[in-house]
């Protein structure tokens, strides 16, 4: 199962942050990240915990190639996020990163199948392959019978399943989940976390951002951050699978 044994190189780390700093100029400099180094191994399952304002959103935006570091280096699947152009970063987001948001962020006027196909559309997949891929993914997340429903015709849990299918569509290097259960009830939340666990079990690298301990415990390790710095890294029982 582990690929570490075969390729014990730096390439194995799909995401790397090396002494990353991010400052915002909001009428006075605010340091959101004050020197963070972190690597995510292929197939790993990492949770980031911290109070609001700790820098977890900034971390997520950097790994998600939505933002560039002020200092330091962020690489995702070999791409230097800080040095790539805006268009290149868009390309990275479309092919190497799968976002799962707290508020689902589905396109309201597109049905489930079109939402899942969206990253593939921007990556110029031919129509037939898009259809095949989206059907497969919707079946995987258990929505094979809801393909042509629009987001407003789906429950919160179903919407998040569509979002997970969309995140997986381009077979990304890393799936970024930002409080994925924050807008759904506990029972459904457990189902969604079960699905994310399955996604990781299938070999996908997952980075989970949450402030709930029970959610974070699904991961192999928990990175605690506070005031823009990593406070501690906690290995969990499930750890060792990729270590």
């Amino acid at each position, binding site marked *: 199962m582990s690929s570490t044994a075969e390729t014990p190189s730096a390439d194995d780390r799909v995401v790397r942050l090396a002494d990353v700093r991010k400052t915002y100029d909001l009428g006075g400099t605010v340091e959101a990240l004050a020197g963070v180094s972190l690597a995510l191994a292929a197939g790993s399952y990492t949770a980031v915990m911290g109070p609001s304002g700790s820098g977890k959103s900034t971390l997520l935006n950097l790994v998600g190639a*939505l933002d560039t570091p002020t200092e330091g280096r962020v690489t995702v699947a070999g791409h230097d996020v800080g040095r790539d152009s*805006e*268009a290149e970063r*868009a*390309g990275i*987001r479309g092919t190497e990163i799968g976002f799962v948001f707290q508020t689902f962020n589905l*396109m309201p006027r597109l049905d489930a199948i079109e939402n899942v196909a*969206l990253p593939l*559309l*921007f990556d110029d997949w031919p129509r037939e392959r898009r259809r095949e891929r989206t059907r497969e993914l919707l079946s995987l997340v258990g929505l094979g019978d809801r393909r042509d429903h629009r987001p407003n015709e789906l429950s919160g849990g179903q919407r998040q399943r569509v979002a997970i299918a969309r995140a997986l569509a381009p077979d990304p290097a890393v799936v970024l989940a930002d409080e994925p259960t924050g807008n759904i009830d506990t029972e459904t939340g457990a189902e969604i976390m079960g699905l994310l666990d399955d996604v990781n079990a299938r070999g996908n690298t997952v980075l989970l951002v949450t402030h709930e301990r029970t959610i974070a415990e699904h991961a192999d390790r928990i990175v605690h951050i506070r005031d823009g710095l990593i406070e501690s890294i906690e290995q969990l029982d499930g750890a060792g699978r990729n270590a």
Partner: protein
Amino acid sequence: MDASETLRMAGRSIRSHKLRSALTVIGVVIGIASVVTFASVGASVEADIVSEVGSSSASNVYVLPTPAGDDDGGPGFGGVSQPVFTEHDIDQLENTLGVRQVLPRGNVRVSALTHANDTISRNQITATTPASFPQDAIVDGRAFRSGAEEAVVSRSARQAFEENLSVGDRLSIESEDGNETTVDVVGVVNRTAGQLPFASFAGQPRFYVPTDPFYERTLESPAVGASQRAYPQLTVVADPARVSTVKGSVQNYLDGSDAAELKPESVELTAQTSGDFVEEIQKIVGQVTRFVTAIAVIALVVAAIGIANIMLVSVAERTREIGIMKAVGARNRDVMGLFLAEATILGAVGAVVGLPLGIAVSYGATIYAEVAFTPAYGWFAIAVAVGILVGVVAGLYPAWRAARVDPIDALRYE
């Protein structure tokens, strides 16, 4: 994202706001339809005038005194009605190569015309020669004879009196000083050979009498040294194959003519062909058409503002969607393309609907105005191109705004 997917996505968002999109498109439809209508009606009127002139007076060269220094005066509608051309001038012109006839034309001042106890007031009637009435212009009867107390009338003159005027009737002409002369009506015509182009448009009653004995304006001819009849206007009927040569010869002769000596300083003698008149008319109609069409273009500008406005609203409404698209891999140019495609579709649909509407309206207008419909194909192509262009131009700024949306902010946007 490829072009067909971009168009498909853009089409979807237009359909999801049917009413809003339709109202925006109506603006473009009105703009395009007005441009097409005005351009087509203008082209039709112009073509109609040209064919009218071409058929009746193509081989005429008009010799008129016109105000000097008025280079742009063109046709002598505003000509000076001062008698300057003597009978000597007429003889000389008639002996010029390529000239078939020279038709003098002058006005006889009168005060009233009476037929069968019905008197109509009238300031002047036209004096000319029998050659003014070619066989194909005579509807009934014959041309008058020179020296006879006879008259020829236009078709519309038959209804000028309570009782219809027809060949064989008698017409009393009361001169300015109250003398009455009675003439026989010998013919009815639908035009005269010497008439100015477009004169038939007026369709008003006209009465013609022979210059001999009715025309009394005389001047002393410097060439002959005797008193002769003098006319304000001559029409030289040329051999159709030699119209331009004749025009040149006439112009040459005019420099040494009696008229050149008799005319006041402020007047120039000009020879103009029907073609010159047609050109002038085309110029005027063209100017009017362009002016009116330019006004219609304002409607297009308003339509463009409408599209820009609705696109800006759309960008604001869909900020979050733009963020989502960018998060899943849309490049700035993909986003720009989507919004630009949407605006372009609105413009193109407006053009495609506006064009046939404009054609239909202009067709109706030409029927109403009783002119032949001449489609302005060039303008049709321009209208469609402009419609699409309006969409593109109106969409540029909103699309640029959309492309610049920061995905981080947009995803937080509620």
